[in-house]
């Protein structure tokens, strides 16, 4: 039992934190020695999706002025999942063309692992937000900002390492990933619109036939 817990702690917290502070060595272990675990990545993704919901629901009054009528937990969760899926697919398609060494699973894992700081900081910050006054909001925002920055840092270093890119190429890859994400959104919207039109066309023919026969 103790061994199991130690292993869990090691996989879930210790190793990701090590990656955060030693990105090159960490991602080396992550990629070559298969120290990264998919279930850890997915757990962090899920935790991040839930974090957004909890923040809206439980953030202190001073920070939270969301209209309760406009809260939609499912929308919140799906938007996070959609974003991650778009990023993973977009990055994979771009890096495949740019001679990246990482595969899709690794990209997903990097994305999941890089959410560690925001999850580790985000959950306690909900608690903190309930105890700050207006003057201390800056402090709260700073802590949260550090979390987001660390997430960005981890994601960047992860992409850089698993694809074995240089600095410039990583930046280019990120830029192109954003472009490919936009293209995917565009194509999806186009697709749905066309499907909708096509369906309504069939519906109209069906109705017409019914009226004539």
């Amino acid at each position, binding site marked *: 039992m103790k061994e199991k817990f130690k292993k869990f702690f090691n996989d879930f917290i210790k190793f990701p934190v090590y990656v955060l502070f030693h990105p090159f060595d960490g991602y080396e272990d992550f990629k070559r020695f298969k120290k990264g675990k998919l279930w850890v990545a997915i757990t962090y993704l899920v935790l991040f999706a839930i974090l957004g919901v909890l923040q809206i629901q439980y953030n202190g*009054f*001073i920070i939270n*002025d969301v*209209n309760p*009528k406009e809260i939609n937990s499912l929308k919140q969760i799906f938007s996070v999942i959609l974003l991650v899926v778009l990023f993973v697919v977009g990055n994979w398609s771009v890096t495949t063309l740019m001679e990246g060494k990482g595969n899709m699973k690794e990209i997903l894992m990097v994305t999941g692992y890089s959410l560690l700081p925001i999850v580790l900081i985000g959950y306690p910050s909900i608690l903190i937000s309930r*105890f700050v*006054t*207006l*003057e201390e909001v800056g402090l709260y925002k700073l802590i949260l900002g550090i979390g987001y920055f660390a997430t960005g840092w981890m994601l960047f270093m992860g992409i850089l390492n698993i694809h074995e890119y240089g600095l410039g190429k990583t930046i280019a890859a990120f830029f192109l990933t954003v472009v490919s994400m936009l293209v995917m959104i565009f194509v999806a919207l186009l697709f749905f619109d066309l499907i909708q039109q096509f369906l309504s066309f069939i519906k109209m023919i069906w109705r017409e036939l019914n009226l004539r026969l």
Partner: protein
Amino acid sequence: MKKKITLLLILLLIPFQLGMVSYNYSFHGEVLHSSAGYNYITHVNQQSLGVRYSNPRDFVVYEDHVYLLATVDNKDALLVLNLDLELVDIIQEFELTPEYESYVQGQVTETFTLINSFYEHFFEEKTFYPGTKLPMSESDKLIEVAQISWESSSVSNITNDGKTSNNSDENVLVNITLKIELWGQVFENTFTVTIGTLEEGLVAKPSGSKTEYEIDENFEIQKLNELLYLEFDETKYITVQDIIDDFIDRLAVDDEGNVKNEFVYEDYKFTFSENTPTEENPSKYTNIKMVSQVSTITNEDADKIHSSMFEVPYKTKNAYGLDVVDSGIYIADTDNGRIVKLTHDFKVKDTFYDVEDETFKELAYRPIKISVDQSERMYVIARNAYEGIIELDSNGSFNRYTGVNPIKLTPLQILRRMLMTEAQRAKLEKFLPTDYTNLIVDDKNFIYATAKARENNAENMIQLINPKGIDVLTRTGYHPPMGDIMYVEGKNNYVIDGPSNLVDIAIGKNGIYSVLDDKRSRIFTYDSEGNLLYVNGDKGYQSDRFNQGVALSYLNDNLLVLDASGSIVVYRPTEFGESVNKAVELHYNGQFEEAAELWEKVLKLNTNYEVAYNGIGKYHLRLGNYKEAMANFKLGHDQFYYSKAFKNHRNQIIKENFTWIFMGVIVLVISIPVYKNRKKIFRKRGDQ
């Protein structure tokens, strides 16, 4: 039976209830049902006043009278009503006070000089083409009240009404004498006018007050410019024929589809007949006539001479603005371009004409609204003057512009303008600051002003301008004070779109102010912190409604609205409105406890009223019931005060439980090294 009666009554009364607009905006900008702050009690109109008037433009409540500007029998009139809204007096003509009369007497000479300088400038170093009409018969335009007569030394060359002619081959010099009679004073001056010689191909004929020129098609443009002091394009055209050739393809067509042989080029209207050139008659165009489209004497010239100053008794012309203060009655006499200051028995004490500023050298000064402060400084809004509110000294001299409406561009607009060339930018619609629509000065010499809404600047529609000229309106309410917050954007046929169009502002007690929206016929009342207290008013032709609000004023606690139809609708605060007003007053004076009691009552009358919770919260905050204060501020969405209450609450908890917290910290500090060295410690014990 009882049930049936109740049901019947409800059915009868529901339409009345639904007919009333009573709403407010929640913190999140949603429309909430709210009790009405003001209810209709009575109205007066032309029938009940017993006088037919039209086009009411402004009204002011001062001491025990209501002064109203309107049109009676096609003439401006100042209607005076008492506080029961019964007609007391109608004044259409204003006598002069003796002091002012002697002042006007002194202005006569100045007027003479102005008229003289106009003609001097006109006749100076010019040679007039024979047949040209000189602007002598038009001299009435400059000043109607004065007697102007002309005498020519040679009637055969210049007649007394300005027709010129010259039959000789040389230039002729003629002396003409100007004689002006005004207010018993006489002025005379003699000008020497040169009349040129006739040229072949150009004939001038007087046509009314203007001159009609008949030109030959081969007449040179350069010569025409020289003779008539014109500025036709010599590089583009050589003869008159070229001008017509240029315009012949784009002539206007009349209703029956015939091409009209006329066009306008540089203020001149050309008419001609078209011919097929033959050998006998090679001309393409004959019968070419050219008449100036502009009069010799323009309104601009006439504006400089204050004709209206000498018309006794004084009448106002389309006066739009009115203010009544202790020092007198001030009327913004719009079309006469002046401000008339009357004593309280309606005698003219003073008039203020020009504003000594660059803007009004090109723009006619048309004051539309006026308000006067304690030290008799006048604040004037002039039509199409975008510089701001004009501040005039008590003696009428121009001080400065105060309160400028800032222009805001969206980032996209800025980017677009950056990418444009200078020429493209010039073609773009000008981004002028919006003009103010109305103003009122409060007893601390702060100006409450309303302005028209502009694209992405609707939040600045209401302004409180301090003596330094800076907008200091408190906007700490849920939304900035701007009338309606939710509205449809873009034109559509079903509902009124766009932001409110505020036309008047009235100051109530304790920093409360109300604005009038003439687009949707609503009155919005705000407190000094910018909280929207209540909305009332409804569009319609019924007597309890108004269709197009013109002016708004407080009469004690009641609100008066002047409608364009001429009726004055009186609104009285409801129980709810009265409680809110009273609570705001108590709050304003720092009596939080009494205010909180009233806010409780307000909440009973109107559960949706979020602002009330803040009032209660402040009372609890003072008392030290931080927890209750927090709960109330949360309901009232006031983060600032919630934070204050919470801070105190937190400190209180820490103070009360200090021993426990301190002990906890000590235990924690000790337990860490103990835990780390647990093996050592436990082993030692085990050994013993």
